[in-house]
């Protein structure tokens, strides 16, 4: 049986393909500020919602793309589980489809995995309005190219995500947040040192002169680690990590660069604000420094800079010529008429 919402979406895609008209796929619209440009007429998938299948013992949840992220998190919480990548919502109407399309992960990412890591399967509409299934609802699956994971972070440029199956994990029995008053250099050194030891750390963040470290796991394991690491216990740990994830923390609210770099990179020294996450491998920088300088600093640190918020139409990322060419060819392979998310990621496609 074909779902009427899906057949209507497919029909609109086919029509746009025939007319080579741009479509912008939209879930909750909370991440419109991310990436480069919004072009074309909105293709709203928020109406296609609902959890399709969830059994805690399978560690897999399948839901339609328009399902609110909050609803998914509530469903999981009832089963004692969670989305371990802790994706940001950036607004109450955030959807599962938007979460996967943006591919953004939260504080637990270096310890548990990214949105992409947890994607097991997708059902999508390609650029010709055909409904395709990739991956599946099982944890290990190496049949065919991993198109499902390719959808994560593609910002709606490769196809319309209709349904996603995700691996989910048990929520920890106990969580505690510790805080240490240390400068940036000391924080980077500490995060990396602890990451090299078998400790139940599940998040790290340096902001405003303090390093916050979250411990997760069994009561016994967390208690032992807390005794070993010391520091001051943060009263409302969950609120702090929510502020980090949702970027309501000072230093994350304004125009922002996102630098994904080698975790041991010393302080970058840009004028302005800086928040460090992910054991040092994620640097959020609010600075007026010239874009070229930021791109180069990230490159020198073994990674990449992306203009995350407030670019005002300036290019948001640099791709090497070879990698850019590959992006263009992959885009053409799945969306031959170039209708999805034109210029959403990059000025050249």
């Amino acid at each position, binding site marked *: 049986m074909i779902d009427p919402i899906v057949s209507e979406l497919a029909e609109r895609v086919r029509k746009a393909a025939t007319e080579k008209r741009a479509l912008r796929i939209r879930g909750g619209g909370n991440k419109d500020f991310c990436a480069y440009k919004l072009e074309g007429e909105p293709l709203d998938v928020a109406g296609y919602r609902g959890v399709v299948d969830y059994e805690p013992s399978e560690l897999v949840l399948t839901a339609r793309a328009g399902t609110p992220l909050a609803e998914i998190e509530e469903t999981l919480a009832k*089963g004692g589980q969670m989305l371990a990548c802790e994706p940001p919502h950036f607004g109450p109407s955030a959807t599962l489809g938007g979460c996967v399309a943006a591919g953004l992960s939260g504080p637990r990412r270096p310890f548990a995995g*990214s949105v992409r890591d947890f994607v097991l399967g997708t059902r999508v509409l390609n650029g010709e309005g055909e409904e395709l299934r990739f991956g599946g609802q099982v944890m290990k699956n*190496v*049949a065919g190219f991993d198109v499902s994971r390719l959808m994560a972070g593609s910002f709606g440029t490769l196809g319309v995500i209709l349904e996603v199956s995700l691996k989910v994990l048990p929520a920890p029995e106990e969580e505690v947040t510790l805080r240490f008053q240390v400068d940036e250099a000391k924080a980077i050194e500490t995060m990396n040192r602890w990451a090299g030891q078998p400790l139940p750390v599940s998040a790290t963040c340096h902001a405003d002169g303090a390093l916050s470290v979250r411990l997760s796991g069994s009561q016994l394991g967390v208690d032992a680690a807390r005794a070993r690491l010391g520091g001051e216990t943060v009263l409302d740990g969950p609120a702090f990590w929510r502020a980090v994830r949702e970027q309501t923390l000072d230093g994350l609210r304004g125009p922002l660069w996102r630098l994904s770099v080698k975790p041991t990179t010393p302080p970058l020294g840009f004028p302005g604000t800086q928040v460090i996450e992910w054991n040092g491998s994620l640097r959020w920088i609010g600075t007026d420094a010239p874009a070229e300088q930021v791109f180069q600093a990230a490159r020198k640190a073994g990674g990449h800079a992306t203009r995350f918020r407030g670019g005002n139409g300036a290019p948001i990322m640099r791709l090497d010529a070879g990698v850019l060419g590959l992006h263009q060819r992959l885009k*053409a392979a799945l969306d031959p008429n170039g209708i999805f998310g034109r210029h959403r990621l990059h000025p050249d496609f």
Partner: protein
Amino acid sequence: MGKVELLDAPPAALVDKAELVRRLSAVLPRECLLHEHEDLTPYECDGLSAHCQVPLAVALPEDEEQVRRVLRICFEARVPVVARGAGTGLSGGAMPHGQGVTLALSKLQRILEVDPVARTARVQPGVRNLAISEAVAIHGLYYAPDPSSQIACSIGGNVAENSGGVHCLKYGLTVHNLLKLRVVTIEGEVLEIGSEGLDAPGYDLMALITGSEGLLAVVTEVTVKLLPKPVRAQVALAAFDSVVKAGEAVANIIAAGCIPAGLEMMDKLAIQAVEQFVHAGYPLDAEAMLLCECDGTDEEVVAEIQRVSEVMRASGATEIRLSRDDAERLKFWSGRKAAFPAVGRILPDYYCMDGTIPKKRLGEVLAGIAALSKEFGLSCPNVFHAGDGNLHPLIMFDANEGDQAQRAEAFGARILELCIDVGGTITGEHGVGIEKINQMCVQFRPNELAAFLAIKRALDEHGLLNPGKAVPTLRRCAEFGAMHVQRGKEKFPDLPRF
């Protein structure tokens, strides 16, 4: 996506071998190019020895520049290229092409850099999986994915197959443990994928390349993540009087919020086959057995092993034993790790399947396999990465006895189709290669295969990289059913397979 090229068709014209060898000789040292028949035969198959084919030549480059040049020559001459790591794969992914060059990366075996503070290792593709963990052990670190062939398989091959292992429920597959790759396209272009951070902007090319079975690019350098070695590991061994109860115990362990480092099941036939051979002390009267390994800090392991034991008891375990020290832990594992060769001792041949299923369908699938076992008149013990639903039925046969090989093949195909029917997949970790190419036609619909083929063309317009593997053409699928593909036994019977 109407137009589909026949990517597994051989090139229209036969390759001029002498000319090809002359051109390759110009870019490779003398000892790095094999083209005499007797030098080529060691490369005629990988771990799936029933699929053999002698290539035109074997190139053994010593650096990335030589890889680039070999690919460029093959691209210009439209010669197929099959990349090969250690040749331990079980799906025939590195089976040569009769009109092609096998690009063996075994000489690229240097560990280029270990950064214990950033917890990374940058290695060449021919480095053995286990060699990485051995090299970083002095820093208290290890590389987590542990395919059973880890003493021999190479990291480049692991990337090509997205290899798993016993510990992937907790620590992930290869794709989850990579930071950066250098790859060379068929046109000889070098690309850097990923970064020294945890991600890179744009499409997730790491996810696309990992597990692409040598169809999209050739890996020349791999930067992996390293993890701190757990302080302690302990195994609980539990016996059950039915496979259904053992399956329920697995579901209950996970529902109780535990993600053990390893969670393995063996059925009665597998336990008995193993026990004759290894004497691991397994319960011979049990219908099924679970091995559950917990790792972490001392406190974490104490808490988890207690929880797991309680759940197993409540789920009907007839006996539970906890490893008292590392020697006993390894003894508990020894039988599981010897399961494949043990089966190989009972009958000369076995055919290892690799389906993944939703765990809740286990009872039904095992009953289905038992029924098929009667139908085909072949015994089939089962070992199971129970935590993540990856089932390895081992079909036992003797290729020299009548039509047993054909029956094993037909039996295997039915098991794969059973896995698809319950919502699973034809391959959890061994790859499609040549072995399961026809079942791809069952698992995917034509427009999905067309999408794979379009991606293939985006990276390899002329279909020169590992043609005929992993993704079938639509024409091949149309012919599937009339075809009869020989399946086969493994080439490395002594290498641990689990």
